[in-house]
């Protein structure tokens, strides 16, 4: 606790407050702009900050990271265009809420949920980092695979949708197939690339999300004609109603509980916890039929999970020097630029810096809430733009987002093709969310399965002899059994 106090003394120095404010503002801006993630922003700023005090620079970078997590939800909700993989899930129901006239509530629950989750996760980070690391290291490939199985079992409930269950499975398999395109991580062998170098690196989930959500939805709206395009004007209170508060607070807490530990896992990332949170909220909700049509829980939970996992990512980064996301990798480069080596000795050698950065996260979260809530009113006005221009703007922003991720024209073509697939899926009443599930979970599950088998020399029993893996698989089996028995 004394350490954290020192940290606050560092973080609350006026000059560091200023750098923190610059960071969160910049972060929010890049989060809103499509295709410019926090990773690229920090990389662009690295050479500029060379002469700066390391603590100040790292406080700013951490602010950018957190800020981008806040801002990223804005385009998902308003334009159906997720800017980075962490906010893909938010787009599913967030944009539907906006169409129902509750854009303000969606943005507010995202901002407040992010604040709650960010703050709680930072508390967890400052209290439990050493313990979390030991737990995270117990996770081998067998455990990751078991976790993926559990995730699959949990999220298959999301498969339903308007059409048949069969259509949901077709979407899931399509996602899995898309996920296996590219160089196989374990053997280096190219799969489904048809000799096209562009496909070697696989298909970026962000590109697919932009294609399926923004482009596919626009084509679908256009095909049904202007009379069918109902978007309700903003109604009710601008922020959240009492009812919406009541429906939001539990998902915030559950999202935090899911997001932080999964973010702390060395192979965690932000996609899995957001997806898990969505599925769990749907399972627990009294109104699962609202999911996919603008359920506030489906925005509150994943947004909290996303921000909590961002704090979780800092656990392996600070204690092991292990980056688990693109942004963390750039942050690691930032540490190295200042001659600092994140790892077990960093807390001992540079306590002022580490605790200063951690304390600045509390401050940054508060700043972000103050910055973002007033912006909600401004963002919502975007929706009163005449429809033809709004869709024109959405397509331009979507194309720009797709293009600027890797600055490749191939991504533009891919977005168009995926958009047309998204249109066809809507036409045959197949849900689009399972495509994302397959694309995100599939490759990870396959890699961990094969890695575990390879380490165990082809012995399948590793999944049952390792206690953690066995426990995870048992809970997955339990969920299936309960699900089947309940249906009867």
């Amino acid at each position, binding site marked *: 606790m004394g350490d954290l106090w020192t940290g606050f003394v560092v973080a609350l120095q006026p000059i560091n407050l200023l750098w923190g404010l610059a960071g969160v503002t910049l972060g929010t801006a890049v989060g809103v702009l499509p295709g410019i993630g926090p990773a690229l922003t920090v990389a662009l700023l690295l050479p500029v900050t060379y002469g700066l005090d390391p603590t100040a620079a790292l406080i700013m970078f951490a602010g950018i990271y957190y800020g981008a997590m806040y801002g990223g939800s804005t385009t998902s909700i308003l334009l159906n265009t997720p800017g980075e993989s962490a906010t893909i899930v938010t787009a599913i129901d967030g944009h539907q809420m906006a169409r129902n006239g509750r854009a303000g509530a969606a943005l507010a629950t995202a901002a407040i949920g992010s604040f709650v989750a960010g703050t709680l996760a930072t508390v967890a980070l400052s209290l439990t980092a050493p313990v979390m690391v030991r737990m995270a*290291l117990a996770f081998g490939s067998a455990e990751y695979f078991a976790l993926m199985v559990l995730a699959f079992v949990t999220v298959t409930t999301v498969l339903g949708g308007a059409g048949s269950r069969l259509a949901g499975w077709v979407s899931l398999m399509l996602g899995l197939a898309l996920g296996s395109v590219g160089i196989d991580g374990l053997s*280096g062998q190219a799969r489904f690339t048809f000799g096209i170098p562009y496909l070697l690196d696989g298909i970026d989930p962000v590109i697919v999300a932009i294609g399926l959500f923004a482009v596919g939805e626009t084509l679908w709206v256009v095909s049904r004609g202007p009379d069918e395009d109902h978007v309700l004007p903003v109604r009710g209170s601008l922020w959240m109603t009492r009812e919406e508060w009541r429906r939001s607070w539990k998902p915030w807490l559950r999202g935090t509980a899911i997001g932080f530990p999964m973010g702390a896992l060395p192979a965690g990332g932000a996609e899995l916890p957001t997806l898990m949170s969505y599925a769990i909220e749907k399972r627990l909700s009294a109104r699962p039929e609202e999911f996919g049509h603008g359920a506030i829980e489906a925005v509150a939970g994943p947004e909290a999970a996303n921000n909590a996992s961002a704090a979780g990512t800092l656990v392996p980064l600070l204690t092991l*020097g292990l980056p688990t996301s693109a942004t963390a*990798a750039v942050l690691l480069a930032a540490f190295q630029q200042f001659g600092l080596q994140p790892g077990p000795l960093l807390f001992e050698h540079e306590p002022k810096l580490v605790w200063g950065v951690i304390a600045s996260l509390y401050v940054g979260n508060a700043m972000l809430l103050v910055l973002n809530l007033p912006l909600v009113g401004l963002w919502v006005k975007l929706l009163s733009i005449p*429809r033809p221009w709004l869709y024109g703007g959405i397509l331009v922003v979507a194309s*720009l987002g797709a293009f600027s991720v890797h600055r490749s*024209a191939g991504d533009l073509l891919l977005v168009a*093709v995926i958009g047309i697939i998204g*249109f066809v899926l809507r036409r045959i009443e197949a849900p689009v969310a399972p495509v994302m599930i397959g694309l995100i979970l599939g490759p990870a599950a396959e890699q961990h399965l094969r890695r575990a088998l390879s380490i165990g020399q082809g012995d399948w029993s590793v999944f049952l002899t390792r206690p953690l893996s066995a426990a995870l698989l048992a809970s997955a089996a339990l969920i299936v059994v309960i699900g089947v028995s309940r249906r009867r």
Partner: protein
Amino acid sequence: MILRGAVVLLLFVTATLHASSQLTIIAPAAPGGGWDQTARVMQRVLAEIEPATSVQVDNIPGAAGTIGLSRFVQSERGNPDALLVTGLVMVSGVITNASPVSLSDATPIARLTGETEVIVVPSASPHQTLSDLIDAFRQNPGAVSWGGGSAGGTDDLLVRLLAEQVGLPASHVNYIAFAGGGAALAAVLGGQVTAAVSGYGEFAGQIAAGQLRPLAISAAARVAGINAPTLRESGVPMDLANWRAIVAPPGLSDAERDAITARVTRLAGSDAWKKAIAQHGWDDLFLAGADFRQFLLAEQARVEAVLQRLAATDPAGPPRLAMSITPTTVPNATLAIFGLLAAGLVVSRARARAVASQLPGFKMAALLGLALLLQPVLMLTAGFIVCSTLMFTVTASAWRGVRPSVTTIAKDLAVGAAFAIVIHAIFTTGLGVALPAFVIPNSLFVIS
């Protein structure tokens, strides 16, 4: 005639703009990695020693750098103001990805830095020295798992070459590829793999804290500050560095090549550079001119040989690990199930005839889909602003679904253009992210 004159004039204007001391360094990887950091350190040092030059770093990630390489070779031909960061990983990437373009297609300039690799075991491991580990490996190759970065990368190459040196085929190595040295670190700390291989810097913190034991480093000689023997000292006669180098585009005159070499030599000799690489923990492996070209050929030959032997023993070799799942199992199974389910869906839909409703705007949607498919071409030839303005207008008209009047089109165009110009300004001048040329097509440069 007038058009051609205009194009020539534009080319001239842009050519003179280019001449005002601009340098582009392409890092063929995502931000944060070694190639990206090399490019950004160069950018910073050049700003100090050549204040008149404005240096831009471009990230073109993908496929072990081969995507950046092929774009570099194709679109920068003859341009002495563009450089590409490269390294050992690209040499093997070119081979494993069957890239049509190789490093021999560029103009080698100089090797700059390198990082020594280190082989580590957890501190609780029974293997005290490299020979302990090699003995265990000889006895039962499959039981010793080696964690490291992506397949075909430096870590992978090191273990395969080491296996061949101790008399085992490269394909006997039970190599577990992780997304990077960091993920391998977690696996070795958690005791999931027997040993791990990566750049020394990735493991330095844990080695200093006593959680990992370094068995050997891959450098040719002992490195100051690292308390571990070299491979040679441990009885394995080989060395390998994860080197990084600079190449220039093809089609340069000898004079241009020498000028670039002199420039890079000046950079590598500067105090600022030496200080920066020491801070990053990189070794100074500067080597330029004919010596570097020689070195590059030797590395290409060595890497190609081991990868070929690996591939040759791949399919039939019975001693290779009995893997119950091959790289093609999951994708093929997925595709088969997808086909079955999709067929089932078609059959059930045909019977139910559920989707019979007409789509009034189908023609408009088809038109918009077509426009989207053509967009990549338009983006590259006409630039971002023109392309986005047109897309905006097409989408708006398609949404209305009626034949648009001249005034609505004019209004859409005006709003779209204003929107595109603002976005373009934010991205290029505000954030320094280059979007395709304003009006002048990039492709003209390639054609002319």
